[in-house]
């Protein structure tokens, strides 16, 4: 119980403190400190769950099982490494984009609040609070995306707010419908929205209502996952916000949204006893993978490019959970968020060096080994090259698809091939060539990039047994 309070309380406290002192010299360190403490707390929490199994605490309002605890750790970890990257990045940015004290305070405070809402969404047992937390995460990131106050960033933030606001409203309707169905079984009042109770009673929930609810839920939370056709906010938001925000958006928020979808899927599946929810996820997933892969080809902006790549991978995960390749889906969640944030770290520095986000103008990154190699290896990893972890998960997904839905394999292969061609060609030309651009005022943060890539490499070569057990446990929960 203490651990949960720490996991949620630390970022909240950090957000409050940084709202006051976010512009000070030592603010980035405070930011990292808060995230580091959160990470430690999440490790403790995970340890506890690993030892004593899932737990329900604080008047049943919070619920931790092996599925969400691993996401909690992942979220806390990536949030922490991103703050490490954010330290030099935002110091450079403060000079390059001449950020005011107010903007710096806003950035640091909202970063922590954003982490808080994500962790709240992951740990809460109440589907209503899950919704509230997701909406809170939207609001926090809207402020982060519009940080620079340029025309483009305002436009991106507006689009983000409106699309996600509309989407998430559909999710609220879905939640209401679930409450409506469960109220008959569990009685009115507080318990009818608690996930643990719903899970226990899912067999007796009204199937028609739940199937309608799931449509609204997948459209709603799917907007935040970035599922096509509701994806158009995602590349804009990734391109226009500060790069650390792009990293956590891609690496974490999308995961959390997908987590919400999967949680709902478990309930709906239990009530329906058919493949309706799965088929919906397969359909959305395939459409997303395919559309995003072809859109990748036409990108000119480096951050948009990787934004679309995130859409593609989220589609792949949705598909994986749809066909029941849960283990592979969870693994892919992990490696994607590690790899994609590493890529954004290198992209951030590359953009600061070249002073532009247009890929044609970025050249010769290899002269700065951490950035150039980071981007190159990151891109290779995200494209599913062995021996990186993404290869393992994609391989697992593909083999699973071949067994259960053979017709989908060619579609996936085409999409992955197109994605490979577009990303690899573009990254290659950025990495080689004559270097251009200027020195950075503060040296780049190489540690987070290397750390992430090393972990992805490790996961590709060898999954530690406790991690594998953890995944299998979570995969079993998802069903």
């Amino acid at each position, binding site marked *: 119980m203490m651990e949960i309070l720490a996991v949620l309380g630390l970022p909240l406290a950090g957000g409050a403190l940084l709202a006051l002192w976010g512009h000070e010299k030592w603010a980035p360190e405070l930011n990292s400190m808060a995230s580091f403490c959160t990470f430690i707390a999440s490790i403790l929490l995970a340890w506890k769950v690993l030892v004593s199994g899932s737990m329900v605490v604080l008047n049943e309002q919070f619920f931790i099982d092996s599925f969400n605890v691993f996401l909690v750790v992942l979220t806390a970890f990536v949030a922490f490494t991103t703050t490490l990257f954010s330290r030099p990045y935002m110091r450079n940015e403060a000079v390059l984009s001449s950020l005011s004290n107010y903007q710096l305070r806003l950035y640091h405070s909202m970063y922590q609040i954003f982490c808080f809402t994500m962790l709240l969404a992951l740990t809460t047992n*109440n589907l*209503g*609070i899950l*919704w*509230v937390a997701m*909406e*809170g995460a939207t*609001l926090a990131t*809207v*402020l982060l995306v*519009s940080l620079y*106050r*340029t*025309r*483009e960033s*305002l*436009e*991106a*933030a*507006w*689009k983000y*707010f*409106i699309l996600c*606001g*509309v989407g998430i*409203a*559909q999710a*609220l*309707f879905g*939640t*209401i*419908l679930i*409450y*409506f169905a469960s*109220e*008959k079984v569990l009685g*009115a*009042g*507080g318990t*009818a*929205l608690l996930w643990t109770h719903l899970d226990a009673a899912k067999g007796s929930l*009204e199937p*028609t*209502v739940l199937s*309608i609810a799931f449509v609204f839920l997948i459209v709603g939370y799917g907007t935040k996952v970035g599922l096509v056709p509701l994806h*158009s906010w995602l590349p*804009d938001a990734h*391109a*226009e916000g500060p790069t650390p925000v792009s990293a956590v958006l891609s690496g974490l928020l999308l995961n959390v949204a997908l987590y919400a979808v999967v949680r709902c899927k478990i309930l709906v599946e239990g009530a329906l006893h058919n493949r309706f929810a799965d088929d919906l996820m397969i359909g959305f997933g395939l459409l997303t993978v395919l559309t995003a892969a072809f859109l990748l080809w*036409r*990108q*000119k*902006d480096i951050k*948009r490019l990787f934004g679309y790549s995130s859409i593609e991978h989220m589609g792949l995960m949705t598909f994986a959970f749809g066909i029941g390749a849960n283990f592979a889906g969870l693994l892919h969640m992990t490696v994607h968020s590690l790899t994609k944030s590493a890529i954004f770290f290198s992209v951030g520095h590359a953009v600061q060096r070249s002073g532009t986000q247009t890929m044609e103008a970025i050249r010769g990154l290899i002269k700065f080994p951490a950035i150039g190699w980071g981007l190159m290896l990151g891109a290779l990893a995200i494209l599913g090259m062995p021996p990186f972890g993404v290869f393992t998960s994609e391989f697992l997904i593909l083999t699973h698809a071949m067994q259960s839905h053979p017709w989908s394999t060619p579609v996936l292969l085409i999409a992955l091939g197109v994605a490979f061609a577009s990303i690899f060609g573009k990254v290659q030309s950025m990495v080689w060539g004559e270097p251009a651009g200027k020195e950075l005022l503060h040296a780049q943060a190489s540690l987070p990039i290397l750390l992430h890539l090393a972990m992805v490499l490790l996961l590709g070569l060898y999954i530690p047994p406790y991690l594998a057990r953890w995944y299998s446990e979570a995969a079993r929960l998802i069903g």
Partner: protein
Amino acid sequence: MALSSQFINLLASILLLLAFAMLSQRRIRSLIRLFMVQGMTLAVSTVVIASTTNQSHLYYSALLTFSLKVVILPWILFRMIRQLNVEWDVETLINIPSTMLVGIAIVIVSFNLALPISHLAGTITRSTIGIAMACVLLSLLMMITRSKAISQVIGFLSMENGLFFAATSTTYGMPMVVELGVALDVLVGVLILGVFFFQIREKFESLDLKHLEKAEEE
């Protein structure tokens, strides 16, 4: 049928009517007034449901609705349009009669969608869930067809109203903690957007989102 449920049906129909009225309203000031009336209708219907079913927590949520949607939000919005000096939503993206036809189609779809649900509901207000769903989708339509940022926000808020009505009419309201959270989100959202309007206006010299040309939609 008991008088109270007839009354709720009437209020539900008024909500539907208001959704259409908002869809066809060109003046932003009138739009906000319609939003106020919508909030008022919602609060009244919540009170009626509360008194007929003796669900005391609904009184609180009626109070919450009233203070948030009839007093605070319209006040903020009126202040905003005064300061920003926007009165008219110059033109809608699709002309109004076609919007209305789409709206009617939406109502039919949502009524059909709601039919199985309302058969299952045990509440006295069960038949209104189709109307709630229609209100949500009509507000969505309004957001799609409007070009002014502020009308989109009003569309967003009225969508939230529809959701609130869905919650009260199907289940006598969500648990209080959820309702408070939702209200908080809405309030914070509007405050953030208020700041946003000024920034957009500063950069674009207009609140017309058509000026937000897509930054290289490629």
